[in-house]
């Protein structure tokens, strides 16, 4: 039986075997491609004319692959995002910099470099107290700009293709708290200024729950996955101990998870880079059904072991290494990685294949083609 792209994704996320592993390329904010790598890919495919209609995202640092490229690689997923609010404190600054709707300043080092948030609106405080949370303006969750046209665009995709649809929500409690307060500053607050950290995280969770409710009431019935993102891992360990996670952050993730599940029947996909193995049981408690990107070369993220320990409760989305294999490996190394993930993470279903992070500029087009063509052709059911 031939599966539609959507059926393939739905079955896989329901822990069932499929004819081949489902493929994502460009369906989420971390599975896209750098403009340079994309241009090289188009040249190798003989699709140069697609360069005329490149759709830049993230202020130009990544591009969304065109529909022609997605169909060429038989990609199963299409991603959507909430829109910009009508009313916001966002403003561009001199040079390559801007202030986002949370009041954080972003800069980049060169034209095609990724933007980095360099200063949060509460980062200057040395000993913050809960009242400081009220000292800055906060985004309005139910601004109609966030969902304008979203349903119509999804309905068009549903009628034009048979692909699975994922709604990507903005960052979650922890990443946004760090954006507002500063990366290291928030980590210190979790131990030294707990009342402030609690007030900040509570306020941010209010906002993101509001945005999620607005978006899911609009399109919750149309989607096959809802994706959230909160980075919590370094290369070697989680940002915080499981004990600190449970005392300071877990309740916010649990509340967000409840809001998501109350407003859609689609599974919740959570993105966190790095080594997060120690936190996975708690994430499952919070209603996470799928983790992305499965950074396989980080400590404790061995795919075989993850599947064995959590595969009954959790699906996996990602898994093709972007630090060594894609940029520096051979096409055969890439193909081996794809076959390996199909056999470990894909055993019994529960896996969608994608690069661990956005495909970086120097990744050879041969390796990108090897990744997708191997996934398309590796149809042997995993043993």
């Amino acid at each position, binding site marked *: 039986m031939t599966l539609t792209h959507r059926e393939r994704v739905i079955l896989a996320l329901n822990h069932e075997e499929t004819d081949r592993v489902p493929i994502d390329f460009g369906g989420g904010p971390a599975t896209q491609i750098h403009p340079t790598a994309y241009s090289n890919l188009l040249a190798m495919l003989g699709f140069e004319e697609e360069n005329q209609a490149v759709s830049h995202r993230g202020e130009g640092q990544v591009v969304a692959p065109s529909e022609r490229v997605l169909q060429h690689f038989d990609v199963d997923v299409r991603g959507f995002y909430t829109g910009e609010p009508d009313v916001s404190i966002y403003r561009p600054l001199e040079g390559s910099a801007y202030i986002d709707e949370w009041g954080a300043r972003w800069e980049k080092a060169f034209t095609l470099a990724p933007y980095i948030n360099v200063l949060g609106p509460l980062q200057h405080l040395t000993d913050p107290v809960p009242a400081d949370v009220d000292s800055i303006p906060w985004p309005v969750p139910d601004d109609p700009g966030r969902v304008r046209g979203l349903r119509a665009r999804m309905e068009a995709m549903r009628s034009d293709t048979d692909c699975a649809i994922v709604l990507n929500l903005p960052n979650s409690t922890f990443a946004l708290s760090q954006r507002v307060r500063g990366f290291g500053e928030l980590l210190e607050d979790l*131990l*030294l200024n707990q009342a402030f950290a609690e007030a900040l995280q509570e306020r941010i969770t209010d906002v993101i729950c509001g945005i999620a409710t607005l978006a899911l009431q609009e399109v919750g019935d149309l989607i096959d996955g809802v994706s959230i993102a909160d980075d919590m891992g370094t290369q070697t*360990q989680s*940002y915080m101990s499981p004990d600190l996670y449970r005392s300071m952050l877990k309740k916010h993730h649990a509340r967000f998870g409840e809001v998501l599940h109350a407003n859609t029947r689609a599974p919740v996909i959570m993105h966190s880079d790095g080594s997060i193995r120690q936190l996975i049981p708690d994430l499952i408690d919070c209603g996470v059904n799928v983790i992305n990107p499965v950074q396989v070369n980080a400590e404790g993220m061995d795919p075989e072991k993850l599947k064995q320990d959590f595969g009954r409760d959790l699906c996996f989305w990602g898994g093709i290494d972007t630090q060594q294999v894609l940029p520096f490996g051979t096409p055969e190394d890439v193909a081996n990685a794809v076959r390996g993930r199909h056999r470990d993470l894909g055993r019994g279903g529960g896996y969608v294949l994608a690069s661990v992070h956005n495909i970086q500029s120097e990744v050879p087009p041969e390796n990108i083609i090897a990744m997708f063509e191997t996934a398309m052709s590796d149809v042997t059911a995993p043993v």
Partner: protein
Amino acid sequence: MNFSELSEMVITGQHIAAAEWTQNALDQGVEPIELINKGLVPGMDEIGRRWKEGGIHMPEVLIAARAMKASMALAKPLIAVSGQEMKGTIVIGTVKGDLHDIGKNLVSMMLEGAGFEVHDLGNNVTPEAFVAAAEEHDTDIVAMSALLTTTVPMMEATIAALVAAEVRQNVKVMIGGAPVTQALANQIGADGYADDGASAVGVTKTLLGVD
């Protein structure tokens, strides 16, 4: 003085207590270098050991470093006066084109906590700025970080600039960052590579032949 009290304040991240203890000790005539080597260094050494073993995470490391820095800020200005020297001088930064600095900051604070003189140049540091700082500070080690695979080649460019300025033969070069490996260090002619902030201290000591 019972320097282990100061070590314990560092380990438990009590920055206010550490500053008070330090001021009191200095007022009583304790040599600042002795305070650093017997109080701060053992405290941060223990933090590094626990972090490497995975017993603690970044929040505990950061508050320990904050306590260490609160004490160091009082002790270090007096060292120049008394003419005592730190273990070695390190110039550190994230290479040109890369604005990431979290990993580099962690390495920087671990090195400072191990008793090295650290000049942190920040991020997006040009090869010329690395060279200028290395010349200015009588440097033993130039340490470079990169997180973007795109900016890894800038490490090689910086080494080339050190060679061109005839500084390379006087310094050791250390590199680190998520896409960086020992193989890359060998390939571009760096002297040392460390996986993380905790191991960076060990690599530095080995390169300089100090304890």
